[in-house]
């Protein structure tokens, strides 16, 4: 480890301690507090329902409603007003959107405050890394993905019928990757985005549900975890060196076609660096196993690592 690295890490460690101390000092201007506090009296669910019958008919079947029917604390007992705040000022002028906490585009409630309403109960757990996450930095509200007013999804009170459908509203390109020749079985309903990603924040970019890319992959591909007595460096380093995560126009979600995938790195003396052409295809004049079918892996079959005493070059 370089001197720079040692000094840098030490300095940043000290900095964090100092910054922590500064951050502990009270201030009147807190971003974590509401910028437009809703004040007033709590009216109770019956008053709300007297106008919002349709909303109520959907909401009463949601997980939230059922938990609020058996409240564990004072806040949960407030039912609608647990999230929307006290309703008395709203009753005075129902057209003034600033008088109630709402969670839609038309709402006058700042995103930070909207989200704070949710984190009042949903603090910690997977939301620990929400602050600073790419979703938070893009000013996403909880209600951009969730709609607790009705039961759209099997779990998670999502805005649509499922996780992947919800994500695809913004991540269309990634969703389309799953239609390619080789792909993870997402459109077939066997995996969803949150098998690999943690949308509420993560210690690993891009919002990965694991400490590293490989640790995410190993959750379903435990056989490739090894470790092996003969390791392949880029495999141990990062599965994405060779594989696309969502889908690919090549076999096995590979980033490009074999043998060129391997020839991007290998030019060891011997056979790895020969230029193979269409003449070497099965339909050509000189078929060559280095380009047919599984290409290099026809022979180097254990490319993820070998546990055979003679598997140095992944032949066994």
């Amino acid at each position, binding site marked *: 480890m370089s001197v720079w*690295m040692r000094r840098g890490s030490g300095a940043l460690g000290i900095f964090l301690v100092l*910054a922590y101390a500064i951050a502990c000092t009270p201030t009147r201007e807190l971003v974590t507090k509401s910028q437009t506090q809703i004040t007033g009296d709590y009216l109770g669910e019956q008053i709300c329902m007297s106008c919002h019958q349709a909303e109520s008919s959907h909401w009463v079947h949601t997980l939230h409603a*059922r938990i609020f029917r058996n409240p564990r604390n004072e806040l*949960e007992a407030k039912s609608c007003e647990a999230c929307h705040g006290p309703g008395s000022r709203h009753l005075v002028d129902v057209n003034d959107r600033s008088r109630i906490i709402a969670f839609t585009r038309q709402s006058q409630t700042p995103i930070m405050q909207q989200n704070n309403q949710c984190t009042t109960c949903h603090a910690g757990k997977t939301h620990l890394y929400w602050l600073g996450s790419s979703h938070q930095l893009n000013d996403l509200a909880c209600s951009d993905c969730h709609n607790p007013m*009705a039961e759209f999804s099997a779990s998670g009170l999502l805005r649509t019928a499922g996780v992947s459908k919800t994500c695809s509203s913004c991540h269309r390109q990634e969703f389309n990757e799953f239609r390619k020749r080789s792909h993870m079985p997402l459109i077939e309903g066997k995996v969803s985005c949150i098998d690999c990603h943690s949308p509420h924040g993560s210690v690993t970019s891009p919002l990965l549900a694991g400490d590293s890319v490989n640790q995410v992959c190993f959750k379903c591909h435990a056989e490739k975890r090894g470790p092996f007595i003969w*390791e392949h460096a880029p495999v141990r380093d990062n599965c994405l060196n060779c594989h696309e995560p969502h889908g690919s126009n090549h076999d096995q979600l590979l980033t490009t076609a074999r043998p060129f995938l391997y020839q991007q790195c290998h030019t060891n003396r011997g056979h790895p660096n020969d230029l193979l052409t269409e003449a070497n295809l099965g339909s050509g004049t000189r078929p060559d196993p280095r380009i047919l079918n599984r290409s290099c892996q026809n022979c180097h079959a254990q490319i993820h690592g070998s546990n055979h*005493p003679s598997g140095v070059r992944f032949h066994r």
Partner: protein
Amino acid sequence: MNAGIFGFCFAGLLLATFPSVVSAEELPPSVLGNTLNPTGSGLTDRVDPRGMTLFKQRVSRSPAGILYDTPRVPSIIAPGGWTGTVDIGVLTNDGPEEATEFNEYTDWKRSALVAFDFFRLSEDGRGYTELSVGAVGRDDQYGSLEFGSYGSYVINVVHAKTPHVFSQDASAFFDGIGSEYLALPPGLVPGANSSDEIDLALTVSDRGTLSIERTLNGMSFKLTPNEDVTLFLDFTSERQQGERPFGGAFLPTFYAGSGSGGVVETIEPVDYLTHSLSLGLSAVVGSYWLNFSYNGSLFENKKDSLTWENPFTNRVGDPFTLERGRFALYPDNQSHNLKLDFARSLPRGQFTTTISWTSMTQDEDLLPPTINTGQPRPNLDLDDWNTLDALPRKRADAEVQNMLVQSSLNMVLAPRLTFRAKLRYQDEDIRTDYTAFNPSIQQIGYVAVDGGFGNRSFEPGVNSSPFQFRSIPFDRKTLEMTAAIDYRPWRKTNLGVEIAREEVDRENREVSSSDDDLIRLTLSSRRLSWATVNLSYEYSQRDGDDYDPYPYARFFTASLPGYQSPFGTTPPAFTLDAMRKFDVADREVAKLKARVRFLVRDDMDISVQLQREHTDFEADYGVDYNDRDTFSVDFNFQPSPTTNLYAFWSWFNRASEMANIRDTGFSPDLSAGGSTYPLDSAWRESTDERSYAYGFGLSLHLTRWQFSSNLSVSDSSTQMDYSFASSNALAAPGASGNPSGRFPDIEHRNLQWTTEIDWYLTSKLTLRFFHRLDAGELDDWHFDGLQERIGNQLYLGIDLDDYEVNTFGVSVRYTH
């Protein structure tokens, strides 16, 4: 761990004065669904014509401007009541059963269609029981049983099956497919058959399906003793069984003379069992949050090895007969992870620290270096190597440890100004140390391809090319530092600037240390009433130490006392010194992302996404550059709660170039243009890949009918061109005809068009009609002219099938 890192960790622990929760990445599956219900959502899908509210004529939007879906007609469930839906029908299709892609992850065989939902609320309204089951065919199914008490505990039991078909028309040449021993069919003998004899056996061999089926069973338990503490335990057990295509090599046919060598596409038996356990707790105590979890995974492969008999003659005229080869299949392994997340909410922000430690171990019994007997070379007697006595140790004793420590601070400097800082340290420590050494004959080395190729025994004082004899620990330490400022110049607008440095120290890689510096600018705004804008641009530059093309020297025999090269003390060239491996080489990356959602009308929006990514390695050999560009447009129109029309179109392009030099000489010279890698053997390859995806959908919900139709098309094409300095670059100079400079394009097209009509016979009874058109085409030059036997190469003869299949379904759905 050095003092700086230690200080940082200590600071993190010091600040973590305790109390609080778990991050526990959830165990798969995150969704229980199947092809006909990919979201696993409930079966009651009658849309409420009132919409969400009676106060608005138009559908509401989320803060980012996304139109909300219309809720379904709510089921009325009073305490003590229940609701349930059963959907029973049949599926049939007119498709070719061997169309692999059509059946890849599902089971479209003509069969019953079953789905069942049940929900019951207890008398006191606290408890509930929920059952959900769905199946398409026998292999594409899911089931879930959950019961619990709201706000108190949840117990969930799940079952899921996922098929994965590789081919439905593969040659079943060998006997014993699915077992650990692939025997030649009757009439053939290992290691000595003529081409005619093999062809005769191929003509009478069956063809069959190669597939794997994943069956997962699991249970989870979550206890919430109070609103601040959650305890959880997840356990899953997944079995994977089946067969998949695999490789197999003896003497490479391109090194062998006519009629010699052997490449055999074998069939790997798969019988995996993976137990996963995740348990821990989450707690919130005042301003402290804590997660603590243990995640364990035990993987068992019930097939330890794969042996196959060699149908070919390894060397014509060689008295040694190479009868079989043997693979060591994926070994049993285990992983244990302990993770602690701590956060403290501060008056001005939040401090967060994560400490995670993972140990991955594997201690499988090792196989002997070869399965064969005989003497392929004068100085190689396989009887010295086909025994466990030929091993330096009997078990693998492999281990990797991974440590992650990360601290971050989010702090409000002023009402509109936020500061973020992050420090992340990750250490991957590979503790495996294996030396290929035969103690019985005191020789370093191994047996290449079970005796089929050359000699890999080290003999001091004898001229030889060096070979790897010892495992290489690719340890890696990464330190990442990030600082960022976010500023809100106006309400609903956020500007951000982030700088980051990632320093990586690698053991035994071409670049031992590198710095990756990054700057990122972001803008997100909902300020405009008619649009939501998200923009980001980032630029990063990785600079490393001097590139060492041969960092593995001490793991190769050239490092051993007594090594003798044909060139005196200098070993022959190992690789080209100008080659740059892209995963460690210097590079520049520029990324631009733009996402704008235009709110065209109250009930309509158009979302446009653009992304451009340029990675420049500036390498003479290896990957030169890699560009990725995407553009997509989404249209969504919801004129009423009961009507939705959408369409999308997207384009993806990837362009890259790489270069290499064919070695045509034998010398210690590593340089480009030298005697080993002359420039007239240089070549380049370029890839230009374009993909389009487009589609539309319409759903219409009437009083007695519901109609939906969804079309999606994917069209991808990869063009690969090459150029070369002279025919010396070619694999077979003089025998390759006149290369055109371009491969046939790799093309894939896929269409799915689903139409469903639900006819509401009564308020509880629905008759459903379903039609789906699936069509696909695939052309890939890897399979062009691929016959089952080509010279001394044997393949499974897998064809790429075009298909067009109509699937029809009818079912009756009853809802209580």
